[in-house]
């Protein structure tokens, strides 16, 4: 009992020592592989991608450490605030946002371009974790306690769909669903929602934008129109397939270097990596991600607070979804939805979101034995 009490307020040095440096090493390895891929994508140059990505990673690591050592209760207290801010920004982006790639996603604050949906990815998990932290096992069984969290999920998801950004909406929905699942919401309720959602699909189809419908069509049959919208998937499959078992060699990927592969530094970077390093390289990378996710679950399982468990579990699921959707997309298993490969794809916003998320994950680890009273969940 005394030992745990000590954990409630640790010194900074103790916290730094307690940071899961193995995890930090793991993400550094993954990100470094990403740097080599970006170096190759630029035709053997650290400019313009690898250098900037490295800078972002270094800044991100610092932020991650700061987040990790800040008392978990501070984050818990801030959870609703961040959520509220996220919702306000989503509404703002709806009103004055910048249109890019046919969707309204960016908020231009002069010096800073903010993508509120990215904030919401973290904020939603934070909020749900804090809310469910206040519920007992019995409460979870009662539907009335589920109304508020459902509303908490539906509002931002609705706003994101309206942008329209189907990929992020799915991501939010799936990671929220995971948090609900971890809390112990009865399985039949999930089945009910899934069945209901399935029934609503034909209706939802009508609300999809043409470009989204087209993506689904091309996903179903990419060879139909190889120079049109099916081009991305087809070229990606050609790149993967031609990479073969052992790959074409570093910087030797013809599909990517001769520009047949689109978006090779962002969404399709896995394809380039697997073209150059073959199935072996792809398996190594996937193994690293599996290790990262396993780390996440281990942290979640070791946390003594429900908040920590749900936060770690939710963030880990989010990480999994990123990796899975991206690789499934580039290998033609799911439609192209524009989800980057975590820590690998070029892009500042995604890198920050991920390192903030991993920072919170490490935070849960550092504060694994901190006791958080249930009433702290309330407002």
């Amino acid at each position: 009992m005394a030992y745990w009490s000590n954990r409630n307020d640790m010194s900074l040095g103790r916290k730094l020592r307690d940071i899961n440096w193995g995890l930090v090493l793991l993400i550094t390895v993954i990100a470094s592989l990403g740097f080599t891929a970006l170096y190759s994508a630029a035709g053997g140059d650290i400019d313009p991608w690898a250098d900037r990505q490295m800078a972002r990673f270094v800044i991100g690591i610092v932020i991650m450490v700061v987040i990790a050592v800040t008392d978990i209760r501070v984050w818990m207290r801030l959870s609703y605030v961040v959520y509220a801010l996220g919702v306000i920004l989503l509404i703002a982006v709806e009103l004055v946002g910048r249109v890019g790639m046919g969707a309204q996603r960016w908020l231009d604050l002069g010096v800073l371009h903010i993508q509120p949906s990215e904030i919401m990815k973290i904020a939603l998990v934070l909020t749900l974790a804090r809310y469910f932290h206040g519920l007992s096992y019995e409460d979870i069984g009662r539907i009335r306690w589920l109304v508020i969290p459902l509303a908490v999920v539906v509002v931002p998801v609705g706003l994101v769909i309206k942008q329209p950004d189907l990929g992020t909406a799915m991501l939010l929905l799936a990671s929220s669903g995971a948090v609900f699942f971890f809390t112990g919401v009865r399985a039949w309720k999930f089945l009910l929602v899934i069945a209901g959602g399935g029934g609503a699909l034909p209706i939802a189809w009508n609300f999809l934008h043409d470009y989204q419908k087209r993506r689904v069509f091309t996903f179903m049959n990419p060879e139909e129109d190889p120079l049109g919208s099916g081009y991305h998937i087809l070229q990606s499959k050609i790149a993967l397939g031609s990479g073969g078992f052992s790959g074409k060699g570093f910087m030797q990927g013809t599909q990517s270097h001769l520009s047949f592969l689109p978006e090779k530094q962002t969404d399709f970077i896995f394809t380039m990596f697997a073209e150059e390093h073959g199935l072996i390289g792809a398996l190594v990378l996937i193994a690293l991600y599996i290790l990262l996710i396993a780390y996440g679950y281990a942290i979640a399982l070791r946390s003594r607070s429900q908040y920590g468990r749900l936060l770690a579990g939710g963030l880990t699921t989010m990480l999994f979804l990123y990796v899975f959707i991206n690789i499934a997309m580039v290998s033609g298993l799911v439609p192209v939805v524009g989800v980057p490969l975590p820590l690998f794809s070029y892009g500042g916003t995604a890198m920050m979101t991920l390192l903030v998320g991993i920072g919170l994950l490490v935070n849960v680890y550092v504060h694994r034995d901190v006791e958080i009273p249930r009433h702290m969940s309330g407002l």
Partner: protein
Amino acid sequence: MAINRRDNDLQRVFTRRALLLGTAQLGMFGALVGRLYYLQVMESDKYTLLAEENRINMRLLPPRRGRVLDRFGVELASNRRNYRVMIVAEQTRNVDATLEALSKLIQVDDTQRARVKREIERRRKFVPVVVAENLSWDDFAKVNLHSPDLPGVQLDVGETRDYPYVQTFSHVVGYVGAVAENELGDDPLLELPGFRIGKSGVEKVYDEQLRGRAGHSQIEVNAYGRAIRELERHNGQQGDDVVLTIDADLQRFTQERFGEDSGAAVVIDIHTGEILSLVSNPGYDPNWFNVGITGPQWRQLNNDKYKPLLNKAIQGQYPPGSTFKMLVGIAALESGNMTPDTRVFCPGHMDFGNNTFHCWKKGGHGTMNYVSALEESCDVYFYEAARRTGVDKIAEVAKKLGLGDFTGIDLTGERRGIIPTRAWKQGALGQPWHPGENLVIGIGQGYVTTTPLQLAVMAARLANGGYAVPPRIVRKDDAFGPATDLRPASRRWPSLNFKREQIDLALEGMTRVTTPPRGTAQRARITQAEYAMAGKTGTSQVRRISKAEREAKVKVKPQDKPWEERDHALFVAFAPVSAPRYACAVIVEHGMSGSATAAPIARDILLECQKLDPSRKPRTAPGPTTASGQAPTRNGG
């Protein structure tokens, strides 16, 4: 402790469900690995192929087309450097400014500019667009000199077909042109933009030999089609040269001898069958077809009443007129209905049935035999000979001498002419043969038509003593200069089974034609004995003279008739008389008189031919100097 217990419930549920979800996620990763295994191992070959197809662009390297040479190696069709100026849009900031600067050096008119800008817009920015081609070396050098001030301008030296003699060989050599849809075949070369294939003449008949085999280069390209580097290169095999039997000097002489007249001439070696000259006048400029003929040029060629596109030597079908008489006589002798001594009296006409058939000489020739009838070209004698012999026997002899069927010359578009028979008339016109028609055939009129080449072959087969020499225009012996095979016709070709005496009579008649005092072509004789020529005049009616016209007694002078209605002038000949070597047929369309118009041309051609005689005077090739010999070296600009 109650709180702790409930907390434990939550933890237990979390642990269970986290493990459940974690396992599910691991399973999903398993699916990804399975997918990657499928793509990267099982389907790898297929995708490797697709990636290579993406990346590698095969470019065909067109082979250099073989040349067409005359018998001494003079280039009749060759390849000329094609100096081109091109513009690459991405290398200049301002296409208009560059074109403007260029127009100060070479001619770039508004239509050219419009075309260039249109093409630039259609194509990718790194694709060179041709601004001007077939530039002179001076213009090309000028642009090259100024190229530092011409951003985006690229100079290029390609190859294009060149016919240095312009129209002299147009009907022999033919021309090349762009490949038409229905000419596309197995050879991928044919799909190459700008590729040319033979469209007529030797260029067409020997196209495959001249064409050569394509080389190819494998080029790595990126997704936008830009060439990154060359991976592999196989040079093709250039086309073989084709050596003709034609003597370029004689051909040029023959063509020039026709002057403004429309007509054709063929000179053939009676032993070898080699054609030394084959001219159809006027010719046309084959270069027009190579670069792409324009509308006005096409209309000009088509509307010309002299029909320059028609190869009259093998496509023109004319009644042979009196040039037909030798064989009518031979047919009569062979049939046994006449002997060399059979005499026919010519009062100037012959009555047959209800018709009167006139001799060209109003007062008549008096008593004629075969030789004197040839000498004076007596019509009545041959009316009688034909009447006694019948058309079918005449046709038999005519066909043996090469008339009425393809000679098999290796040129395009040969026509066969008509040698009528009873069966032919029944089949073609559905009418029986009238005996009176025999008479008309006897003087080479009526249904009979022949080509000048056929007449030359006929003369050759008579002059060589009756051997079936076939005409040809491409040398088979792979040599230049005089023929390497000097065997006479009798040891080369099958005999036509004429009686030597009968042939000799025909030749004697032909010799007397060019002999004073009575020979019809005596004025066109060759006076040097060693070159002396024998021949036969022919003046063939284009239009039948009606009874009414004849009875009206209004004799319209030939010169007063419209050109189209004047008689054709023909002459067939061989030389030298002492030891025949060359045969010649000349036709001057609507030339009015065989003796006055065609015979002098034949005389000059045969005289020139003998003077140039390759068997006596081997020469070195003079010919025009070709561009390739002295052209400046390639300059990349």
